């Protein structure tokens, strides 16, 4: 399912700390959904991963001022590319599903046209799957998950040194 984990928030928590915490959770959810995503017979996996990618992109944008600009831009760009590739696969999935349901409600004489359009969409779905496979490989090769976690770490403020520690350093 595409249900995201509920994340507790404290109004008084520093913005940057909340951003780091939430990005870690949403990044984990994105990669948790990667398994089975290229299986066109199971359209729920790609749906769940796409929703996770949208949520991750949204939190990155919401907490953008908390992250170091140079690294943030590249990570956000890679998340957008992956989200777009998930959309290229997901859009024909949804359209095919809707047309198949629509076709069942039609008189027999009207079904061949809808079936022909479904055939065409199957080709788009296959192209979308190829694109998605390439983007998943690219995300893996570029260490996207690790970079997201590093970005979250960079947003966290350094802990205040204990009085004794400051003197010893």
């Amino acid at each position: 399912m595409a249900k995201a984990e509920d994340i507790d928030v404290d109004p008084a928590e520093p913005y940057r700390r909340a951003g780091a915490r939430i990005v870690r959770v949403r990044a984990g959810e994105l990669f948790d959904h990667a398994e089975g995503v290229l299986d066109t017979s199971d359209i729920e996996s790609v749906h769940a991963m796409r929703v996770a990618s949208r949520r991750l992109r949204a939190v990155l944008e919401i907490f953008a001022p908390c992250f170091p600009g140079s690294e943030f831009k590249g990570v956000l760009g890679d998340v957008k590319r992956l989200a777009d590739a998930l959309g290229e696969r997901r859009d024909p999935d949804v359209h095919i599903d809707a047309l198949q349901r629509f076709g069942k409600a039609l008189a027999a004489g009207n079904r061949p046209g809808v079936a022909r359009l479904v055939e065409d969409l199957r080709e788009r779905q296959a192209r979308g799957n190829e694109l998605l496979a390439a983007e998943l490989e690219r995300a893996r090769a570029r260490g996207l998950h690790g970079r997201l976690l590093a970005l979250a770490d960079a947003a966290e403020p350094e802990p205040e040194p204990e009085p004794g520690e400051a003197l010893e350093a």
Partner: protein
Amino acid sequence: MKARRVKGLEPDEALADNAERIVRVRLGELCAFMPAAADPAQVVALHDMRIAAKRLRYILEITGPCFGPYAKTATSLVKELQDLLGEIHDCDVQVPETVAFADALMAADAGALRDAAGDADDLDPALLKQAPHAREHAGLAALEAHLRARRLLLFDRFLELWSDAERKGFRARLEYALGERADVRDPEPR
């Protein structure tokens, strides 16, 4: 649609204070599409309003619990609005795609029939049976009619949803809730 930049965000300040600034801007962006998006022909305004609703929904889903109780109601309403605008957008994309697909099949049939006519002085209607896509046109026309009618219906629902939200004071109540702070416990030990 590019999101408006939110000024005054401070990473070291409280989440709720920063979230409040973002929500106020995103709420303003959403509401600014009305009344333009109430014109069914304004496809771009409607599409942009969907994007604005999506941005507002996500910030509310994450930070809504920081605010007064109405933020939760507003989150559900904005999600419903975004879903509905998404369904309308799907129709706006699928109608021209269906028409283009049907046109391509029609053009292919016309070409095939022309070839079948050979040196004839005129086209024999009996040849229509030989058109490669003869059985497919009716279903595509039915689909186009269905999508157009569905778009009309969904658009009416959108207008109803928005006028109901306005009647119930959606914007003012959310703005008020943004000034409130929820009393929640620390999410995790520091």
